[in-house]
């Protein structure tokens, strides 16, 4: 019953829109969030926000228009702006928005026991600080946030989907002399984050790296943590799998379908229905029922990601990869839970340089894949143990070429944003030392 109370104006909006356009899609989000920030070991700020946002997309004779507002009371103005925007857009091949499907509406990433209040955030900070006590580094800053939101997708084709999501996120920064450590965690459920370990790891890295020594320039086997690997993949490789970038010739993988693009160890796929994952959802941002899409199977490129707009334009099928970064703009190509998988093994028996994080991954060349980054919290690792820390070094290479040099995937995976990935062992990478 809730639906009819909450969204009467959405039905009104759709009826109004149908007078002037062929189709309309309404995305409405409403939520509450609480965050608390640490300065050193004291809570300095507690913040709450009530968010809402409306995004409208209209389609008329293949012309797609959009507008958004944080004030749903102004939906008429927003609708007019969307229609005006469509008048300017170049018309394209368009075969219609999807109709409703009998999808299971059980929320996949909603923790009903999560209390979105300052006390929850305060307890998370306390637990992080407790973990941080493990090592003598000083905490400089930290943050914990909890939120709950409800997303509604409605269209002139009769779609009325509503889903609820929660999220919990935390991070801590520490320093020891001139050595810093950073760790974080996030999930949709409170009992799936581990604040004590976040605190412990942050001070561990700050303390251990303080003893770092320089190493000579040369080629080394490296072990990228899920975080470091995600930084490089997310900037360069994942965007190259977007159908939009492929057809616009902004992807180095454009002509590589059916070819080997990584070591045969590696598979990459989007699994929107992965149990327990943050990005799980039964429908995408355009209302298409989601399913798993395999981009790379045993090293071979087998698919790109599509939304409806790109699929219609280039005669392809949508892979239900439309996402919204918020209520603003139009849906665009993204992913739900991007998984890097393959045969797992022990990756740190033999001596290797472990890289916890990198500085400057976003400055990589997104077309060619060339990058050059400073290492953060790098160590030699051997026999499964941290050995000598490395003070400062640079890693230069090419994100596309590097995928062919992968020789092992760790047994454990970790979620970094919407990427779920293991640590990867890569042979012979160029490290510029001192």
């Amino acid at each position, binding site marked *: 019953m809730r639906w009819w109370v909450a969204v009467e104006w959405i039905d009104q909006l759709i009826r109004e829109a149908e007078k002037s356009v062929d189709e309309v899609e309404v995305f409405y989000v409403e939520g509450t969030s609480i965050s608390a920030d640490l300065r050193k070991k004291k809570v300095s*700020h507690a*913040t709450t926000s009530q968010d809402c946002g409306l995004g409208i997309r209209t389609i008329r004779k293949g012309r797609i228009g959009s507008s958004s507002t*944080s004030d749903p009371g102004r939906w008429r103005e927003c609708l007019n702006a969307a229609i005006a925007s469509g008048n300017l*857009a*170049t018309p394209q091949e368009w075969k219609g928005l999807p109709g409703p499907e009998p999808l299971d509406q059980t929320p996949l990433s909603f923790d009903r026991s999560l209390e979105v209040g300052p006390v929850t955030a305060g307890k998370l900070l306390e637990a992080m600080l407790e973990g941080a006590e493990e090592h003598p580094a000083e905490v400089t800053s930290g943050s914990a946030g909890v939120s709950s939101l409800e997303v509604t997708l409605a269209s002139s084709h009769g779609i009325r989907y509503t889903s609820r999501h929660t999220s919990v996120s935390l991070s801590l920064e520490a320093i020891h002399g001139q050595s810093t450590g950073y760790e974080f965690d996030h999930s949709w459920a409170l009992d799936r984050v581990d604040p004590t370990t976040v605190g412990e790891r942050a001070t561990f890295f700050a303390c251990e790296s303080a003893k770092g020594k320089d190493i000579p320039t040369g080629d080394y086997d490296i072990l990228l943590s899920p975080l470091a690997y995600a930084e490089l993949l997310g900037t360069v490789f994942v965007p190259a799998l977007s159908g939009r970038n492929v057809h616009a010739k*902004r992807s180095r993988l454009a002509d590589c379908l059916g070819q080997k693009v990584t070591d045969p160890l590696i598979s990459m796929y989007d699994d929107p229905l992965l149990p327990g994952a943050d990005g799980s959802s039964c429908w995408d941002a355009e209302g298409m029922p989601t399913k798993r899409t395999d981009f790379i199977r045993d090293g071979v490129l087998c698919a790109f990601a599509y939304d409806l707009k790109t699929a219609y334009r280039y005669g392809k099928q949508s892979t239900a990869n439309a996402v919204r970064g918020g209520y603003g703009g139009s849906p665009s190509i993204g992913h739900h839970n991007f998984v890097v998988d393959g045969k797992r093994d022990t990756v740190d028996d033999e001596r290797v340089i472990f890289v916890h994080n990198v500085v400057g991954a976003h400055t990589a060349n997104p077309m060619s894949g060339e990058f*050059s980054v400073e290492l953060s919290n790098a160590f030699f690792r051997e026999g499964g143990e941290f050995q000598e820390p490395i003070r400062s070094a640079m890693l230069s290479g090419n994100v596309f070429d590097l995928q062919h040099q992968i020789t092992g995937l760790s047994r454990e995976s970790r979620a970094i944003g919407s990427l779920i990935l293991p640590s990867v062992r890569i042979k012979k990478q160029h490290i510029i030392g001192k």
Partner: protein
Amino acid sequence: MDGISYYDLRHVTGEVTHIDIDNGVVESAGTSFFNKAILRVLVRSGWGVLQIDNFTTCTGRKFDELLERAARLAVITEEQVVLGDVQRRQLPVPPLKEDPREIGLEEKSALLAEIERSATLPLIVNRRANYIEKFEEVRFSDSSGNEFTYGMGRSGFNVLAVASRNGNVQMGYEREHSIHGFNLRHQQDVGRKAAQTAVSLLDAVAAKGGKMRAVLDPELAGVFAHEAVGHASEGDLIQEGSSVLKGRTGERIGNETLTIVDDPSLCEFGFDPVDAEGVAVSRTEIIRCGVVNAFLHNRESLVAVGNGIAGHARAMPGEPPLVRMSNTFIENGDSTKEEIFAECKNGIFLAGSRGGQVDPGRGVFQFNAEYGYLVENGECTKMVRDVSLTGEILSTLHQIVLCGNDRKMSPGYCGKGGQSVPVSDGAPHVLLVDAVVGGSGMD
């Protein structure tokens, strides 16, 4: 109200217009609206903050209820905050030479399409141009009776050209953004430059990493000032202990010739008429003649750290004010560009910026050039691509041995704490010795 020692309210309404043209196709174009406010309430134990979408101005009991809601959040805060006494003044917003709001979306779109088309050359396989225009009406008031109201607009465009040959894919990227009004007219040269850079890079070689002499162009040297010095001088980072510049006032960390400034009162892309805490904005010399001179502050870090002025608090609409840079630059020296290249003799010239990042606590930074040239006998020779620089804040500034006399500012955006604010960076040409250059090229 009981227990509340201070509050301030910053309410921002406005609209954003954008146009996206991709290979001749108008992908999207239109206008969106926003209305966001932030209410910060200081009680004995710290800040309670409310972020409100669709704020309607209210007074009396309704406003008191908001104050109480914010104050209640402070049940978990535990930090005594003292706010510094500050100067109040609002600068006039520079007039727009041509007001973008008076130009129709169709005309804007046609002009952007011309720029996009001008990025056409053989081997260019994709062109993309974006226009973005944002107008904000800002209303600030606080419990001390200060009130400021102003409207301000920013607009500009980016153009990207992608060149491809035998699997080698390269790009050229240009951007022009301004607070002075509409800037889409007569800009085809900018599109052509993006295309030429992309095509030239197809023949460039990967740079070889190592230590060498490097000449930085004004844009990249500006990013250097921003990453290597600007962030580490932010008062909130100094206060929490995550900056290597903490406690180094008066210490020499660079050559006599080096002065680095942040100035939100300068009419460049990072201009603010008054800061996000209602404080007067003015110039801070972070490094003066090679010596650590002053830090950037908000009212809180000014008291906690000292040395410098407040007026450096900035915020996105509806977001909490943070200590931020605005217009950051290396002051002109007295060398000419020719003298700098002659002094470099053999090394590398780096130009344009693909951005950078810093870990201010560790004092390590990294940034990337769009392209470069080998310098041989004082002349630019072979083009190189994908070159980055890393360094350590406390030692790298000594490596700047010459500053040119041709300072130029470049607009951009800077991220911190999940907020992105408009900034400009700038410098003259500078010469670095023993620069640590990263690149994947091999011998």
